[in-house]
């Protein structure tokens, strides 16, 4: 990927106008999940939308903020993890999982669990919210370590079991 700025144009559902902005590709690369969340304040009266941009500079989703408050000259916008995941889930058409506990809280319970299962759970807990293919990407090192292929259905079965056990949530 090249560095520098990329131009992006989205439609704002509040003012019904196109909004143009620039994003730094370096900034996207810094994101753990590869998605940059941009809060765009614009218009008169001032309002904001949240745009999700991936590393290919594709817009993964646009959300309208329910409220907009200014503190001094700084716009404060909080995007909850579940909102991000729902958005990703819709745009990518695959299940996402949300951690309900910090891994340190459930580590002892899972002490004897198989390394694959434990690693999947740890990955979800560390990410907060993560989609299936991203989990696979993050645990790919285990394929080499075990000399074995780990496919998406395998990961999903493990996730579903943890959902049933109440440690994570499918969203």
């Amino acid at each position, binding site marked *: 990927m090249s560095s520098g700025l990329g131009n992006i144009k989205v439609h704002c559902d509040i003012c019904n106008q196109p909004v143009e902005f620039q994003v730094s590709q370096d900034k996207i690369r810094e994101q753990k999940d590869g998605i940059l969340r941009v809060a765009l304040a614009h218009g008169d009266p001032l309002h904001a939308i949240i745009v999700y941009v991936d590393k290919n500079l594709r817009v993964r989703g646009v959300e309208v903020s329910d409220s907009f408050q200014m503190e001094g000259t700084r716009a404060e916008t909080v995007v909850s993890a579940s909102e991000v995941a729902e958005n990703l889930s819709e745009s990518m058409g695959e299940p996402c999982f949300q951690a309900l506990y910090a891994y340190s809280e459930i580590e002892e319970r899972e*002490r*004897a*669990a*198989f*390394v*694959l*299962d*434990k*690693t999947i759970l*740890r990955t979800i807990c560390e990410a907060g919210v993560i989609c299936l293919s991203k989990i696979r990407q993050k645990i790919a*090192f*285990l394929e*080499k*370590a*075990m*000399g*074995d*292929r780990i496919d998406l259905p*395998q990961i999903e*079965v*493990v996730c579903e*079991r943890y959902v049933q056990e109440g440690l994570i949530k499918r969203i």
Partner: protein
Amino acid sequence: MSFFRFRRKKDPSRNYLNRMAIGLGAGLVKARDVILNPDFGPQGAMDVLATWMGQEIAKELLNQKVITATSTPEEVLEKLLEEVRIAEDLSVEMDGDVAHVVVQNCLICPRKVGGYDLEGNTACPVGGLVRGAIGLVSGKTPQLSKIDLKTGEICKTDFTIS
């Protein structure tokens, strides 16, 4: 000056030790990052190493025609546990796709048999052995749906094979 010459006698049951050593060596190299990572702990390291050992033992089971490439996962599981002689008392109960494996009087327990203090850890190879062996023979990777390890006592592991 002394001279010692070893000539291998044909004893297929001894080949399993060779295979386990091969799996252990390969696993140590391929899984070194996991093994050296404290996040995975002793059980995680054993899981990955035992997966390699399970694959190698399955190759020997195939060589000796104890199993064939068309053996069901249940047959592979039964022969693997029987040939490796993990425990004095071992039962495999099939319930649909789920195999309930109960190991009593384990013969490879580092604590009970070896007398080592495991410092509260577990290092059970059963999950990795089974996963590696069944995965190699049938291409179906079993899920370890429930693991209840009571070191030196009774260990229960459920495998979902589908």
